[in-house]
């Protein structure tokens, strides 16, 4: 008989939204990514590509220096990256905005509108944008824009033509027909999907014919043309040095072009198509060229970071291919006592009851279900805003969720098999939005993470009421919002992590700041307080693990030992952050960690593996004899059974004997995507 009874949940029908556009900031090494459902995510490359911030929205468009968004609503929105929400919006007055580009020094913003106009906006240093001028308007929506690095000219791509606009005079300096080489009989509409303006005066365009073309803008002549795909070439990005570009096509392939000397040592250089990459199955809608990597995002919701091996100095974390599909956040909350799971979608919540069995079986055996899992409830949020966070109380009778502007609390009544939901009236007007919600283990209190480092404590009252008890604030104050919370099982302690990666511990008895965990240079990805020892267990985005004793206000001996000996090399090279930490109530030394690809039981009583040891050794251990096995044992017991094509979204211990895992098979995700561009495959 196995150690745990595992509920393998596969009914979480999450479909991540496709990537629409991306913007990369070189200095901060941060990438902003907008999805088709309007969500904006910010990835921090310095912190191992951790997804730092998420902001709900409705926009579609490009971003600039400070993060701006523009979309089909016709507004330019500036995002408040501290409070993770749209800050200000200005109407562009040109209909839907199809493209947006900021100049090199980030002082001006150009937008391309449906009506064919290109408008310039001044970026106001304090915040917001101010309309500056209209450039020459010509019929046809402006689908893409690119500034000349000097800021004097703008290239704008429309259907069938490219325009180069003089920024100073506002006149059209050059108009290039993209389609003039095609015989008239075969003429189709040629959509210029993406454009880039190089300092040499070369304009690069990618169009719906799958061509990448290089134009001399002053003469309006074609320099070079490469057909990369039979379907459209959708996106284009240039490296900072302007010696390499990356093109994304609707067949899911990305291509790199490089400016290479024709002869060694010669002056003449030419653009040559070099490497093809096929990481996506669908349209590659956005590409970014960083100095060391090609980043592409597609409609298949994948963000792929492909390092350029020749630019990476040493083999290490940056040299590996990364693929992100699912968010680095917890979208599942679990009512341990009531055995309920709450799934968070962008617009609604689903409450499920776990199935149960009355049989017991051997290790590895699949047990028959006596009761099927049951879909109890679907809560739809009103309005267009995305649900930002949600939680269900351990007893299963409270559900809370928050959108960008509203906070909702529901009381769930279980009467036999029927279930009724009542909205709790009189929710206190708090500073919103809430970034994280957490219920105390006795279901008596709800913790609401808010901006400026504050955490609101709300008392949940039977039969259906609530009262704001207190607001906890860090002593020094911060501008960043709290994004992770953890409370102790005895209800005495609460740990909160704010956007500046500081971990504050509060005493709930006295509603007082207790201590601050020493700051570490990486983002916290998950934390939890041990139910018996009250040690705070923290995992960081660089895969480091710390254990901090709250009563003693210092790192524990085990944590120091870990830091001294260092973690296993393979452990540190994993590419997805730990998203949840849980403890085994039966064995106090066991900690349950999981990321998208694995589930790990960390046994603190066992020795740490050194670099020569095999990290993932569970299957080999099984075949060994008892004494040999004992020799080989180490602290990390990693299970990858979940990995094959089904990422692990959530894993938690319901009680001493029961483990629940939520998987999302990748096949199910791809089945819900629209069919990809039909391609003839050899041999089929």
């Amino acid at each position, binding site marked *: 008989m196995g150690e745990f009874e595992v509920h393998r949940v596969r009914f979480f029908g999450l479909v991540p939204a496709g990537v629409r556009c991306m913007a990369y900031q070189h200095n901060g090494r941060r990438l902003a990514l907008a999805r088709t459902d309007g969500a904006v995510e910010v990835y921090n490359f310095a912190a191992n590509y951790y997804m730092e911030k998420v902001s709900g929205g409705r926009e579609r468009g490009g971003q600039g220096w400070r993060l701006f968004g523009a979309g089909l609503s016709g507004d330019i929105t500036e995002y408040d990256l501290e409070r993770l929400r749209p800050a200000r919006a200005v109407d562009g007055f040109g209909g839907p905005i199809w493209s947006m580009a900021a100049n090199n020094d980030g002082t001006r913003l150009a937008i391309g509108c449906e009506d064919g106009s290109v408008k310039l906006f001044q970026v106001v240093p304090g915040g917001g944008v101010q309309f500056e001028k209209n450039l020459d308007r010509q019929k046809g929506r402006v689908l893409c824009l690119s500034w000349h690095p000097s800021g004097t000219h703008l290239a704008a791509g429309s259907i069938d033509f490219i325009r180069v606009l003089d920024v100073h005079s506002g006149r059209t300096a050059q108009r290039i027909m993209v389609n003039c080489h095609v015989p008239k009989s075969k003429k189709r509409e040629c959509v210029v999907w993406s454009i880039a303006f190089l300092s040499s005066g070369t304009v690069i365009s990618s169009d719906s014919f799958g061509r990448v073309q290089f134009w001399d803008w002053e003469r309006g002549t074609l320099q070079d043309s490469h057909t990369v795909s039979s379907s459209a070439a959708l996106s284009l990005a240039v490296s900072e040095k302007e010696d390499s570009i990356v093109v994304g096509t609707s067949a899911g392939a990305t291509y790199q072009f*490089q400016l290479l000397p024709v002869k060694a040592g010669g002056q003449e250089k030419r653009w040559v198509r070099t490497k*093809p990459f096929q990481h996506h199955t669908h349209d590659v809608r956005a590409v970014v060229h960083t100095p060391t990597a090609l980043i592409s995002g597609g409609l298949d919701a994948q963000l792929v970071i492909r390092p350029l091996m020749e630019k990476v100095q040493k083999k290490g974390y940056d040299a590996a291919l990364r693929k992100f599909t699912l968010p680095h956040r917890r979208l599942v909350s679990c009512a341990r006592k009531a055995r309920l799971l709450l799934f968070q979608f962008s617009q609604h919540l689903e409450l499920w009851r776990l199935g149960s069995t009355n049989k017991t079986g051997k290790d590895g055996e699949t047990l028959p279900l006596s009761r099927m899992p049951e879909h109890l409830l679907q809560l739809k949020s009103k309005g267009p805003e995305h649900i930002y966070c949600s939680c269900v109380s351990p007893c299963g009778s409270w559900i809370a969720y928050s959108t960008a502007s509203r906070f909702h609390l529901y009381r769930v009544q279980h009467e036999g098999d029927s279930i009724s939901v009542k909205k709790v009236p009189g929710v206190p007007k708090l500073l919103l939005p809430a970034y994280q919600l957490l219920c105390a283990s006795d279901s008596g209190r709800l913790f609401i993470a808010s901006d400026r480092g504050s955490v609101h404590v709300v008392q949940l009252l039977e039969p259906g009421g609530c009262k704001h008890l207190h607001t906890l604030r860090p002593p020094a104050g911060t501008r960043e919002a709290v994004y992770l919370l953890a409370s102790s099982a005895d209800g005495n302690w609460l740990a909160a992590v704010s956007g500046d990666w500081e971990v504050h511990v509060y005493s709930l008895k006295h509603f007082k700041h207790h201590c601050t965990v020493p700051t570490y240079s990486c983002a916290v990805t998950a934390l939890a307080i041990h139910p018996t020892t009250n040690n705070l267990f923290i995992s960081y985005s660089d895969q480091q693990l710390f254990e901090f004793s709250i009563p003693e206000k210092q790192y524990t001996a085990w944590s120091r030992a870990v830091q001294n000996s260092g973690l296993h090399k393979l452990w540190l090279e994993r590419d997805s952050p730990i998203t949840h930490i849980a403890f085994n109530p039966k064995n106090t030394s066991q900690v349950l960690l999981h990321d998208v690809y694995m589930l790990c039981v960390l046994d603190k009583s066992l020795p740490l593996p050194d670099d020569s040891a095999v990290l993932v050794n569970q299957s080999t251990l099984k075949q060994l004899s008892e004494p040999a096995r004992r020799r080989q044992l180490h602290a990390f017991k990693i299970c990858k059974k979940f990995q094959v094509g089904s990422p692990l979204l959530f894993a938690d211990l319901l009680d001493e004997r029961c483990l629940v895992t939520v998987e999302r098979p990748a096949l199910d995700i791809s089945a819900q995507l629209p069919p990809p561009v039909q391609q003839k495959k050899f041999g089929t």
Partner: protein
Amino acid sequence: MHGARAVFSVGARFLLCASGDFVKMYSVATEELVQLLRGHSDLVTGVQLAPHNRLQTFTVGYQLLALYALPSSEDSVFVIIPKSGERDTFQLVSVKLTKAAGQDMEAKELSVVLEGVDASPKCTAFGREGEYVASVKDVNLQVYFFKQKQLNRFSLRATNKKGGNNVFTCVACHPQEDCIATGHADGKIRLWRNFNHKKEYTFSTLHWHHDKVLDLAFSLEGTSLLSGGVESVLVQWHCGSDCKRDFLPRLGSAIEYVSISSDGTFYCTSHTDNRITIINSNLRFSKTIQGLIKARDVKTGLVVDPRTKALVLNGEPGHLQFYCLQSDKQLYSLDIVQQEYIHQAGLNQSDLVRVAFSAQGKWLATVEEREETDLELQLKLWFFDEETQSFKLNTRISMPHEDHITAMCFRDTDEMEDDSLMLVTTGRDCVFKVWVILEDTDPEAQQSLSWSCDFVGSYHSYQATNCCFSEDGSLLAVSFEETVTVWDSSTWDLKCTFCHPPGKIRSICFGRLTCSKYLIGATDHGFLCCWNLLSCALEWSAHLNVVVLQPDPLSEHIAAVSWLFKESSLFVFKPNEARPICIQRKFCKERIQFAAFVPRDVPETIGSEKYLWLRRSQLFFLTDTQELMTVSTKSAQERLTLSSKQLAVEESLPVTPFSLLLGKHRHQQSQGDVDLGKIVHHHHEQDSPAVKELLHTPAHVLPSASFLCPIFINSLLVSKENKSTEETPDEVEMESEEAEDDSDEENSVTEMKQEDKMPLESLGETTHRLSKSEEKELRKIRKVDYSWISVF
């Protein structure tokens, strides 16, 4: 035509290709063999034009595995040689050429350029203006820059995640830019750039081939890349783009080499089936130079078409080739299987296994089989259509037997009446079947004649292995494992049985003409038996491990080839006497697979008693390695020489009067060799061919009239004067003989080319181009010639 890329001469008028021990020069315009260059005693492995003298060619052979000549380095060439002391390691060395006048050169100054290169000439290529050399082996590419003396190595992973095979197969360098194209085992082509940087190199991939890329070539300006592989499709890639490419499909068989003429007007592909295709630069098929097609496996044996006297055997997959021996060229190829051949490893395709002609060649029977989980057999009968002059399918019988068909023969009778025609097939399903023609009375039917089964015979459920009709067609002998049964062909009664245990019967045949009362059989256990059909008793037997038993259709002689101690021996005998007429022991070190008597057009007059059996027909053999050999009587000493020990490769000289002439020369030359320096030259034999040559050679390949005149006149002169004349066509001959006499050195610059080609170029043009030193050399050679001739 193997072992080396074909090379176009300057001006793309001639094509030079290595063929066995020779280099053959073909005319591009007429696809005719213009000249045969000799001088090597082993396989020629490389041919290159001398870059500075357009009249010179370099050739290499024996232990020099590949040759490269660069225009930038005038006095040195590059060759790949085995590294001394180590097996299977090769190195690229540069060789300083001495300015000696001789044809062969001994090079002493060697300097190693690259170590550990692949032996194949396709795996090393020289880059733009000879600035670098690229060589691939396994998964490694190494590039050596001569000026910087810098060696860069790049390696790929052996296999990638998607199951690709990254092993390099060939390399080519861009003529203008720093770009290297490499072909890979999984069909990918990589274009490398920036390879002067160790780290920041980059490559792009072109992928169309589904299997190994066998050769690559850049066009003259480097704007397009040609690639070829087993798909037998020539692919032209434009500007390194994956999307823009042109194809020239259906080239017949896998492309082994691709080469381009120096002016870019012609491409040339050498194929695995012993063929060269010349292609216009607009990818239009132009000419083909076809030898005896090398089939994957000759299963049909050697069969003689009675109508054309052509040798018939497997050709392209599923085809039957008709190969004319007299003219040494392929007559035509008949598609039997009539299915698209798909090049894919592990795919079982229908193949032709048996062929039989009726006595006058009116009917052709073929058997094809395909073996997958169960056997698919088809027996097809073809009728010779006089109007179209080709065979037309008459009857198709699927699954004529339950198991493999082992033998098939027609009854050789007067074919005027079709109803007497009879076909017998024997199968491993223990039966033999007799097929006859039925006349369809239905006037609606498309054809009045069709074949159907008449009789099924068996003997103690033994497997039927061979069948044979007697000369008059009255008796049929069928061998069943250890037993030979003789049947009356009119009543299908079993007449008698013969047995010579132990050992199964390997082959049987009836005697002919005066010996028609005898039946000959060869057994597994090395016995050759002769039974008398009248007495039904064993006449004689001999202990001989006979692998091939072949009766001559025009005489009573029977040839038997034995295989003993890894040598093949030939015995020719008459069935009525146990003593062989002719024994030729150990004439070949390879196992003979098949033999055939080909009737001569004109009976030869043979003085020697020993070779009387060759008077009316000629005997040909096919060995394991698909070499075709013949027994010749033409030797001056009446010795049996293997006159046309033609490698299948070499088989391909198309028939021209010139080639015939050369062929004759070759015989004499082989005698010359035997005579150990005592060179006897039969000038009188060449007289008439010289005239013939004049009359038959197409006008556009003829040299100028001023050149031809003396030849013509000389040929009419009596032989005495012939010896003293200087510019006779056999000068070539003598020259090369001289070369052979002292051909101890391998690396030879064939100077004779110089002499020979000069008249062929327009004379006035060439004279002023010759440098003084060359003129000197020429004069020297002429002097040598005189002295040499004056020996006679």
